[in-house]
């Protein structure tokens, strides 16, 4: 666990609070800072995301208010497994868990999420309605776009059907951990929909037969694009912006079938030890300053309407009016119900 605090340890804080409680019992006076929110444990992905949560939310907004913020770092799979394993405990080990929108839905369906008390999150008045879930709060979003290297793919693609096409042979790269989104994009490019991924399977098998490369992670794809081993793939626009910044010579295209949304947010486990602090952390997460910093640092769009994103950043990471019309949300129910079956097909028929 990474710890971000201002040098006030829990032990010191408890000692001080104990002493003050004694004094205040005698005098009937309680100073404001003695009402500290205590410790808040945030389950999150590691790497840049965790660092930026610390830099843009924890350190500037929580620590001055005497909160101790601890990051429980891990992949979302591990953290979801942990939530399930801790479900029977009266007191869990985390106050918040960062998950994608379908994962938040899945955890809520499993009965593991606390209903969000929006009265405790004043900043939620500016929250985009699509990201205001009864069981979680959206933090950032991006959309699935096509990335291609103009040197290797001379005819710019315009659609998922163009991108996920056997004609690209070994120049097409597919990310293993992005299997639901790849199947979704292949389905959209083959007449399927958000509630029917079946039509995309034939297209994917044809691509595999033609030599499409399957890479294990997003980072492996970034390297393959950089090395020009791969010329075309699909990815979140935010990632594309990061990779372009890192020197990958790729252009992006918003597919004409629609731009599937990627929303990342936070849920509060039902057995969170400090539910009030969790709500407070969510409120601070929606502060315009935090949202603006995330857009600048990470290339993701914020989830509030009152953040002031510089026009050049907006142009780089956002979507124009026409593209915004094509943003489509995922069907979380379909994904939750079919994820195991989709993964089994992916492992056995597509990769096998």
């Amino acid at each position: 666990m990474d710890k971000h605090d201002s040098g006030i340890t829990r032990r010191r804080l408890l000692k001080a609070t104990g002493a003050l409680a004694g004094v205040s019992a005698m005098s009937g006076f309680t100073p404001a800072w003695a009402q500290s929110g205590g410790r808040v444990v945030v389950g999150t992905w590691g790497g840049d995301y965790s660092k930026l949560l610390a830099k843009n939310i924890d350190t500037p907004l929580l620590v001055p208010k005497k909160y101790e913020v601890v990051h429980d770092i891990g992949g979302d799979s591990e953290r979801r497994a942990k939530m399930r394993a801790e479900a029977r405990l009266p007191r869990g080990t985390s106050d918040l868990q960062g998950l994608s929108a379908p994962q938040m839905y899945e955890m809520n369906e499993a009965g593991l999420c606390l209903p969000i008390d929006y009265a405790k999150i004043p900043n939620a008045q500016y929250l985009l309605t699509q990201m205001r879930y009864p069981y979680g709060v959206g933090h950032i979003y991006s959309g699935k776009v096509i990335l291609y290297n103009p040197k290797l793919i001379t005819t710019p693609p315009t659609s998922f059907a163009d991108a996920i096409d056997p004609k690209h042979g070994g120049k097409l790269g597919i990310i293993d951990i992005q299997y639901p989104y790849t199947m979704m994009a292949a389905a959209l490019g083959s007449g399927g929909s958000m509630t029917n991924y079946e039509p995309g399977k034939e297209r994917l098998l044809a691509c595999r037969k033609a030599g499409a490369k399957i890479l294990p992670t997003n980072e492996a794809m970034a390297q393959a694009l950089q090395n020009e081993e791969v010329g075309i793939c699909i990815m979140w626009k935010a990632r594309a912006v990061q990779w372009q910044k890192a020197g990958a010579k790729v252009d992006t295209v918003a597919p004409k079938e629609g731009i599937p949304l990627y929303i990342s947010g936070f849920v509060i486990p039902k057995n969170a030890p400090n539910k009030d602090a969790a709500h407070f952390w969510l409120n601070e997460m929606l502060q315009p300053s935090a949202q603006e910093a995330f857009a600048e640092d990470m290339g993701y769009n914020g989830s509030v309407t009152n953040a002031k994103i510089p026009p050049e950043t907006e142009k780089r990471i956002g979507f124009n009016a026409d593209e915004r019309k094509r943003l489509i949300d995922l069907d979380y129910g379909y994904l939750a119900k079919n994820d195991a079956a989709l993964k089994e097909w992916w492992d056995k028929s597509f990769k096998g």
Partner: protein
Amino acid sequence: MGSATARLERPGTQAWTAAAMIAPASIVVMIGIVLPVAILFRYSLNQFTPAKVMVDAVTLENYVKFFTDPFYRAILFRTIRVAALCTAICVVLAFPMAYCLARTRSRFKNLLLMAVILPLFVGNAVRAAGWMVLFGNRGFINSMLIGLGITREPLQIMYTEFAVVVGVIAVNLPFVVLTLQAVLEGIDRAVEEAALGLGAGPWRTFRHVILPLAMPGVIAGTILSFILAMNAYATPVLLGGPTFQMMGPTVYNQFAGLSNWPFGAALAFVLMTATLLLTVTSNWMAQARYRR
């Protein structure tokens, strides 16, 4: 003092003393191994539903699914094949190294031993990362091959069985060397000298004297390497990539990726049972062969 010794020697007291000495380790084993394994076995008999993950039941459907699905059977056979191959290569490579280490009188013997142990200071994932640098399409090997004009296009080394076998051997080799070296140290040089003195050549001495005497070490090293290879996780994930699937990562994927705990538990039990059966059988066969 005399009466105290007499008290200690009484059978009842001895039994209590033995029980008291065994108890802490037994409790640790119970809590740390037996209990989780028992819970895992119980989970393997449950049913999977995507929303609830597990529904209490007593069913063999997860085991039936494994044994009737060629895909999962293929993963098990691939794992056994890789583990057996890696173990065989490890023993063949480790024996001469261990023999030299055991017989050397060099003042650098401790340094040589340290050189064998040194890779164990680094985690499997870090070592696999090193192999990735070597095996990548723009890695050291491919750059060298292209630079020397031996190949035009990079060879696909990453994400292949070859890469996994090399990676697993690199992880297991020090364990086998150290196990063998400990046993070879205990073999009296006089036995070898007697064999050579009686006219046996080096090969006959090795086959009929050293190898049978070193057999406990060979068996222990084989078991150790086989178990490690059967349960390998980081190396197959990092060097095998998405398409080369082995049992360890598949078990993890069922638990963490798909939240299918009942099937993951069943896979874990199949892996554990297969490892145990193969280990016990090979141990029994080797002992029977060299007891004659």
